[in-house]
Each structure stands twice: as structure tokens, then as C-alpha cells.
């Protein structure tokens, strides 16, 4: 017992000494500063480093941004808004680094210091799984914010991910007017892609929407897209969806694609404007039961003349198809004079061509 008492007293003394030292440590002066213009500029520099990571989260760029964030976080700054904003951007970086716990900690810090901070609202959205909840939260934050550009942009990104391309374009266009130019440089291509997909029907299947989102497509994908989003090939399939192995030879067999002696095509060949014109024009001819359409330009209208399109001579296999598609407005000339037949066709362009024909 006596020994126990002794241990107890020693422990108490140790605790008191420790407390004394720790109190002394606590009482050391923290020489801190408010955020001045230089710090604000550095925070903007950080923002400029982090924004492009949304499109290019390479490890080198992530490390560079993290190093700069760490350096800013180590500064002796006592400024609620600065700390909140820095925490929010740091949290966003942690999300990109796949460290959700650290990101949540930063979000908590940011929200506790500055609940209306737009960067915190964006971070909160990125840590939320449900797209509908994200939109609700961002709309609430946007209403309260006097500087909602960042929040509107994030809403556009959520809409884009959810396939709501019209709302996405509206959000991109509104926010990119408000934000520095590097935002447009980062998200411009995504915005343009959203515009390309704006006319997708609400009934468009996810598979078709995915194909329409591609910058280039193969003939296998083009035929899938045709079957998924139109009834133009029903005359072949009877309304069923055929696999590539079945539909491709069937399409070739009906002359809807150039025969091997004209051009070597496989399901994996990428679609170019010339072959797309061939397909559409031949499909149109079958669809309207007017086989004469296939030779009306080369044998009738321009039999004696030069081609009206600079880069599509009368001898080109797709001469009739190109003229027909342009006159019927399934496709357009690139500049009013040239067709650029070897240019690749994007999924969204092909989708639009099919819809024009249908």
C-alpha cells in the first residue's frame, strides 16, 4: 500500500511537472499575421495549380500542388477566411489524391471557419456520393454566395456526369464568364463535349450516350449506335439488336458500306466522313426505296461537269453520297467548298447525322 502511495505521489508530481511544462509551451507566443495581398495571390496560384488537375491528375502535378499547399499551410497566418479557403483547396487536392479522410478533416475546418466559402461547398459536393444531394447542396450554397462562379461550375460538372448535358452547358457558360481564364482552358473541352451531346434524346440509352460521347468511333460502334438510337436498320434486323459479328456483314451485304473491292473496311475501322456519307446515303436510298438516288449526281447532274466540291472528285467512290448528304442536310461541307472526307467522325456528329436522316 505504502509503495502504491509513493508511486501515486510521484505520478502526481510528474503530471504536475508535465502540466507546468506543457502550459509553458502553450504560452509561447505565436507570431502570426493576417492574410495580405501577397498571401491572397499565392492562394490564387494554388487554385491555378489545382484546377487543371481535374482534367490531368498526374502524380507529378499532384505532388507539386501538395508541396505548395503544405508550404502555405505551414505559414504563421491567423486569418479565418484564408485558412478556410486553403483548407478547402487542400481538401479538394486530398480527394484527387484519393485520401477522403484527410479531405473530410479539411472540409470540417473550412466549414467551421467560413461556412459560406465557395471552395468548401465544392469540396463538400465532391465528398457526397448522391448526385441529387450534390445539386441540392450546391444550389443552396450558390444562393447564399455573393461569388457563386465556382459553385455554378461544380454544378455543371455534376450535371455533366449525370448526363444532363443541357443543364451542364448552361452552368459552364454562366460560370466561365465569372471565373479566370484558366478555368475555360481547363473545362472548355468538357463544355464543348456537353454541347455536342445537348441534343441527345431523353430516351437515349446509356450505351448510346456513351458511344455518342466518343471523339472517334469504329464501324462496330457506329452500327451499335444506329441500332440503339434509331430504327433505320430495322429493315435488316426486324427490330432486334444484332451483335457486330452479325450486323456488320449484313450491312456490307446490302451495300450500305463500300464493298471490299472499293475500300477495305472492318468493324474496327474508324468512321471517316467519306464512309459515313456512303452509309447514310445508301441507307437513305433503301429507306426511301429510291435506288436512283445512288447515281443521280454522277450520271445525271454532273456527268459532264467538274465536281462542285474541291476535295471530292467525281471519281471518288463516295461522290454521289457526299453530294446527296450535303444537299439533304444530313452532313455539311466543312467550309462551303471542301468536305474533308478522311476526317474522323465523332460519336455525337454521327448521332446527329442519323437523327437528320431519320
Amino acid at each position, binding site marked *: 500500500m505504502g509503495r502504491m502511495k509513493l508511486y501515486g505521489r510521484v505520478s502526481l508530481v510528474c503530471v504536475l511537472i508535465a502540466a507546468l511544462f506543457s502550459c509553458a509551451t*502553450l504560452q509561447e507566443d505565436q507570431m502570426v499575421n493576417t492574410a495580405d495581398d501577397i498571401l491572397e495571390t499565392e492562394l490564387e496560384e494554388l487554385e491555378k495549380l489545382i484546377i487543371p488537375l481535374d482534367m490531368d491528375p498526374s502524380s507529378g502535378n499532384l505532388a507539386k500542388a501538395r508541396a505548395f499547399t503544405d508550404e502555405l499551410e505551414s505559414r504563421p497566418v491567423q486569418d479565418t477566411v484564408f485558412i478556410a479557403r486553403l483548407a478547402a483547396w487542400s481538401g479538394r487536392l486530398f480527394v484527387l489524391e484519393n485520401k477522403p479522410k484527410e479531405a473530410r478533416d479539411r472540409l470540417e475546418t473550412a466549414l467551421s471557419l467560413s461556412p459560406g466559402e465557395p471552395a468548401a461547398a465544392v469540396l463538400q459536393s465532391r465528398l457526397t456520393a448522391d448526385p441529387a444531394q450534390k445539386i441540392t447542396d450546391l444550389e443552396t450554397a450558390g444562393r447564399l454566395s455573393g461569388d457563386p462562379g465556382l459553385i455554378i461550375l461544380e454544378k455543371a460538372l455534376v450535371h455533366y456526369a449525370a448526363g444532363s448535358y*443541357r*443543364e451542364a*452547358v448552361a452552368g459552364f457558360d454562366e460560370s466561365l464568364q465569372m471565373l479566370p481564364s484558366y478555368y475555360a482552358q481547363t473545362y472548355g473541352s468538357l463544355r464543348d463535349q456537353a454541347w455536342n451531346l445537348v441534343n441527345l434524346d431523353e430516351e437515349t440509352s446509356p450505351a448510346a450516350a456513351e458511344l455518342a460521347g466518343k471523339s472517334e468511333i469504329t464501324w462496330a460502334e457506329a452500327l451499335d449506335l444506329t441500332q440503339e438510337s434509331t430504327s433505320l436498320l430495322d429493315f435488316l434486323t426486324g427490330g432486334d439488336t444484332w451483335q457486330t459479328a452479325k450486323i456488320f456483314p449484313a450491312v456490307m451485304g446490302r451495300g450500305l458500306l463500300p464493298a471490299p473491292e472499293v475500300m477495305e473496311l472492318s468493324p474496327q475501322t474508324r468512321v471517316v466522313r467519306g464512309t459515313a456519307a456512303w452509309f447514310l446515303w445508301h441507307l437513305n436510298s433503301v429507306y426511301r426505296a429510291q435506288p436512283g438516288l445512288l447515281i443521280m449526281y454522277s450520271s445525271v447532274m*454532273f456527268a459532264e461537269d467538274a465536281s462542285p466540291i474541291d476535295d471530292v472528285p467525281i471519281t471518288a467512290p463516295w461522290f454521289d453520297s457526299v453530294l446527296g448528304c450535303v*444537299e439533304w442536310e444530313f452532313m455539311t461541307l466543312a467550309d462551303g467548298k471542301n468536305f474533308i472526307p478522311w476526317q474522323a467522325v465523332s460519336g455525337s456528329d454521327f448521332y446527329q447525322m442519323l437523327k437528320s436522316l431519320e
Partner: protein
Amino acid sequence: MGKNTTPRAHRARNTILVILVLLVLLPLGAALLTLIGRVSPFSVLPGEHIAYLHVPNPVSSADRLIRHQALEEILSLPEFSAAAPVVRGLAESRILANPLLKAALNGDMDGAVYDDGAYIFSWDLGFASALLKIVPAVVSRMNIPGLYYVQAGKLSRFEYRPDNASTVYIGLYRNLAVVADSRDAIEAILSESTPPSDTAENSEPQRFQSSGFDAGIKVRGESLISMFMYQDPKINELLSHIALGETAEAAVTLEEDRILIHIGSRVATRIPQLNTLLDRESYVPAILDILPSTTQYATIMSMASVRDLVDLAQAVQGPALGTLLARADTASSMLLGVSIDDLLYSWTGEETAVFGLEGRPKPVFAIRIANEAARKQVFESLLSSFALSGDNSVVLDGVRVPRIRMPDFLAGILSIWDIRIPSPYYLVENGFLLLSESPENLLETATARRRNATLLRTETWDRLSTGTSDESGLSLFYSLDRSVPFFLKGNDALAQVLKLYGKGLAKMSVHDSRIQLSLSARTTRSMNPTPLGGFPVKIQGRIGSTVNVLSLKGETVSRFLYTVNGKVLESRNYHTGETLRYEASDPLYAALFSQEPPTDLNAPAVWTLSERGVAALLDGGLSPVEGFPLATGIPVSAAPVVHDGALYITGSDASLWRITKEGTKERISLPFTQVLRSAPAFSGSGRKAVMAMYPKSFAGKLWLTDTDGSVKDGWPVSVSGIAFGSPLPFTYKRDLHLAFLTQAGELSLLKEDGSAAAGFPVSLPGIFYLQPVWDGTYLWALASDGSVFRVGMDAMYDSRKLQGLAAKNGTLIVETGGEKSIENPRIFISGEGNLLYGLSRDFAPLPGFPVKGWGTPWIGDLEGDGYTDCVSAGLDNTLYGWRFK
């Protein structure tokens, strides 16, 4: 000279003199006569009223109103939009600024509202009352719809009988124009059955405490209290204990950028603690000296100490708070060895405040220190307590900013007022204890006065506080982007109006048991374009890209037409929001039946055509007219067009059809065999009308025919290259011209005989998917890269590129004034996105543009008031509305 004057000339001179004297004396005499038998407008208002209105000089007040900066935004609120045309008409006429009119019509206007809702207004027409005798004759000749003059001897009067509202009676009595909603009331005044009670002593206007206002109103006190009762239960609870005097007065003064409202009343409460406060005379709060210039909002209480506030809260909230306080007292005594009295009340003075700084989310709390020695003692005991921890280590920009952890019992007391500062930093400055969760806010506050950067020195404060005393017991300074004061949280018309003013200063002061409330609010926005009232409107479904407006003849009510999900045409009433629908089985096009507004809702108003070729003529209620819908069987190749009330449909079998309003279907014989990919463009009307067509082809030709397809002399004209759309026919110097632009940029200008105009074709550098538009002087074209071209009739052109605009799918619109001609029409452009650009004729971007919108907006003058309105569909399925000069 005088000696040489002939008697004839002398007589002529005398005659002229007499005429001149008569011209001066007659009006003067008539004016003087109006001074005889005059009565004050108040004297004819009978009995006990529940509200009384006094406008000292209606013409001057109306003049100030139309010069008020927020007027446009007020008029765009649905509650006031019906008055917009009249107000804007007055503004445009500038008649109210006429000094002669102001001098002639300088009398008062008084009005009263009675228990049953009846009203009487009476306006002293001053010297202009000399003209009252001729008013019936003049007005009767003006033939104003619904206005009648009833001849009944002494009781003769005007009666205004609108279609859907009760009759308004207007009588002319001595020097007054009297308006009432009751025949008995007006006859009583005209017959003098109730003699005017006109004595200077009991004249109500004399009893207004305020002066120099534009409009004053006296109401019963309880009516005024109910105006402030909104969602906040605590404020409602407090207000329920307050009784204003039997009559409270409110006075409104308008300035160019500010509205000033004074409210005064005797006040009594059932709470003794509140009575104590209301007995105290107000003074100028000392906290005003230290509020930084960056202050965005502030609530200043300078009529109560902390003890007073706790006592008041206890009286209003009941015994539960008493228990909380007792527990806090026990805890304080145990932990700190001091009572709550010592802790809170021994050092605090009569001023407390909370304020927020620009760009800083955490507020600053300020408490006046009455006894600094006592405060120091309390803080020392707090910081020396084991129960509490303090931190004295933060040195911010060289200034030590200590921090303290708020004990739970104290936090509990603060939560009565929704204050949560668990661990605030604090500073003592200028006799105030400043507390905030953000030390930099304290530093900014502490140094503001030293830097002469206080709120009192700002132009905003200066402007807001002009005309009101700085003595106050309670002050609220606000910026609506940071805080919304409780009295603006409602949705009634007054709150809606006051929300249009970005910054405000509300004060309450007490003098001689009379409470004075003042609100000074200032416009901070000069938005151009101004959002139209009631917009934006969220649409359920995918809104189409084109917006049209349908108005009925003689009505100012407009209905917006747009498609939803491709297959539904909706008509939305601007004022009521009522939405009518017409649903087709497949995607449809819609076009107005005529540019002339229909006479009524049953008249033909809109043509629709579905992609399957089903045509329908709808009336203003979107019901099909008899004989429609009509299955035409035409394989539609392009959007149709309406000309002279008939629908023209192009078929993919190279046909053109005309559907008349009677439902007849006529095939127009075309002189070519190619398909029209766009509807013909028309010029002129009746037999002189012509159609311009471009059957799209690489061997393309332009055709000009009459409406039956007969080719005009000199046509067709060949074009090189492919193009989109139909040629643009327009009249220049009374001659018909056709403009046509190929995709490659070759712009042709052709005369009526098919010959090219001098200098044309012109090659424009760009790729074009749209035909040009004509603004009366220039042709305008839009290239796919967002370049806008202005081409003169001399073939010279100029262009500007709109950054960020791509316009393969675009729209180019020239502002038209309808029946009025516009000297310098503006150009509106939309492209591949949700932005609508606006340019002046010399390419200057319009202020505030681009605005949100897509496709083809409707641009015009909705209410004939000289303002341009724009209603556009947004890609986010929202209808946007804007108004600009």
C-alpha cells in the same frame, strides 16, 4: 414719334393693350375666383376611418417617384406591373417636371379607407380648379373606354366602369376632385349633405409629426404591429406584448437613390421590463465611433444593459429561463467563485452590438465596458480558474490577441440570443470589449479608428443617415447580400419592394414615451438589363429554343409561347402565370397566326404543324379552331412559315402547300423539282406579296415568285456554292432587294429584276450557316466562328469577333420597334451555348450582356412603354426575362 402717331395706330395700340390685359387678367381673375369657397380635401372625408392618407403635393411626389432609381424594378414586380404602362407613360411625357403644372396643381391630396373597405380620395386642384367647369366637356370628347359622364344636376359626376371591377365615381366639388367607390359617398359630398368640417385645428394633416414627406399615412397601431410579424417566433412573441397608440403614422420620402420611411407612435407594453427600457431617452451610441468602414451589417442595442436584456428575455420567455439562470449562477459560484451578477453585470454598460465585416464570415460582438477595473477583476478570476483555459499566445501582426474558452453555463445564457462563441478571441478597445472567433476581425476593428477608416466616414453611411437622427436605442445597418433584417423576411408587397434596396439603416428611438422608427434604404444596383418581374420561371420539361409573345388587341397582358418536350405548346400568362397547353402526338413547330394581335381569346392566334404533317390553327386559349387539327399527309421537309394568316408547308416530295384558316389545302405549283429545305421568305402582303426560295442544290438557283408560284421576270438567278436557308427579301429605298449568303461567304444582293446590285457579290471571310438579316440600313451576317458582319448597301463591310461564341447553330435578330421605327436598332446573337449577346449598330457590346438564353428569344416592347423587353429560353429549362432601355 409720339406726335406723329395717327389716331388709327393709337386705337390699334390700345386694342392690343386691352387684349393683353384681358389675357393676363382673365386667368388671374379665374385663379383668384378659385380662392373663394375653397375647402380642404380632408374636410370632405366623412366619419371614422381606419386609415388616412395625406399627400402634400401629388405632382411633385409623382415627379420624384418617376425619377426614383428603383422604380423600374418595383414596376417589374407582379403586384405593380399593371400600373407600369401609366407610370412609364408619365415618365416619358416629362409632364410632371413642368414647373407651370407643379404651380397650378400644388394642392394636397387626402384619402380615407373605412372599416368596410370603402375609400374616398380628394385632391385639391389648386389654381387648376378654375378649369373644372370645362372638364366634363373636354373629357367626354376624349372617348375613354369605360368612362361615362352622368348628368344629374348638382350630382353630375364621372363613372368609370371597368369590365371586371366595381365602378369608380369621380366628382368635381368646388376646388376638389373627389374619387370614391360608393355612389352614396360621392353624392353625399356633391350634395353637401355632409357639410365640410374644415377647421384648422382639427385638420388631420396638421397632426403629422413628420414633415417634408411625399406621402403620409395614419393607421391603427395594431395594423402596424402586424406588418412586422413574420416567421421569427421570438420577435412575434415580443411584438405580441407591445401595443402602439391608437393611431400610428408613417411617412414616406422618395429621393433619387433612396427611400426614407418614418413611423411614429405612442407605445405601451404589458411587460414592465420593456416599459423601463422605453422610458429611457435615446442617445447617439458610442459604438458608432469604432465600427470599421468594411462593416457590412450591424445590430446595435443602446437602450439596455446586459442585465436589462436578460431580464427582458426572462419576462418574455418565462420561468424556463429563470431556471437556466439559477443553474448558471450556482455553476459560476462553484467554479469561479463569483456570482452571475458579478460575472456579467458588474462591468457591462448599456451598449451591445454585433457586426460583420466585408469578406469575413465570423461576426464581432461588442459590449460597452462601464467599469474597466471590475472587468479586469472578472477576467483575471476567469483565467485563473482551473475550470477554464485561456490562451494569451497569439500575436497577430504584432498585436497580442488573447483567447478564452467560454464556460458552458455562460454559453447557455448566450444561446438565448442565438449567440454561439465557444472560444472567442477578445480585445479591449475604446471602452468596448470586442469578441470574435476570428482574431483578424478584432484587429481590423481595433485599428479602424486609428486609421480613420470607420463606417461613419463612408459615403454609404452618410447617405443612409441623412434626414434621420443618430440618436437611437436600436439600430440595424444591413447589406442584403450579407444579412436580411427580420422585417424583410416576409413576402408581402412592402417587403418585396424594400428588398430591392441593397443597403439600409433602420433605427428605433424613444423620446417622451413616443417611439420613432426610421428606415433609410438605398439602391445599390444599377443592373442593366433589369430582370423582368416574375422571372426566371422554371419550366417542367425540355423547353424549346424559340419564345414568342401573344397579346390580345387592347390588352397589356402578354402570354409567352414556347414548346416543351418538343410535342407540347405552352402559353404562359405574364401577369398571372396561368399556363395553357396544346399537346401534339409528335414534335411540332409553332408560329403566330398574324403579327396583328387577335381581338379575343377565341380568335385564331397560333399555327402549329407536327413533323407528321398535322396542321392545327389554335385560338388564344390554345384550343383548335373548328376544322382543325388537319392531317395534311405532307412529308414535312422544313419548319413552316405563316404569311397573311395562311400556313405554308414545304414537302420532301418537292412540294409547297398553303393551308388557309378555313382549313383548305392548296398545292402551289413550283417552277422547279428540287426539295425546299427551308420555307419560302415573304415580302409584302396581299396580291403584291412575293416569295423568295432556294431549292438547295449544288446546281442552285434563287427564285422569286408570287404567292401562287408564278416566276417574276428576271428569275431564277444562279448561285455558286451551297447555302442554308432562304434568300432574304427586303425593301430599300422603296425597291425590293434579295440578299443571299452562301456557306463559303459569298454575299449576293439582287434587285427585283434579278440583276446584281453594284459592288455585289461580296466575299465575306468566314463560314456561314445563316442567311443575313436587314436592319433598315445594313445587312448583318453571323459566321460560325462568332464573327459578326455589318454590310452596307455600298458593299463595304465591317466585322467584329465575339470571343467565346461559336455559331454553327446560331440566331441573329435585329430589334424591331413594331409600329414605331427605331433609329439605331440593336443586334442580338445567340450561338452554341446558353448566352445571348447584344450589340449596338457600331458593334459596342450592350451593358449587362451576354445574358442567359439560347435559340431565338422574343425581343420587343411588351407593354408599349418604350422599354425593350427580352424573353429567352434557357438550356437549363428556364424562361428568362430582361428589360432594358
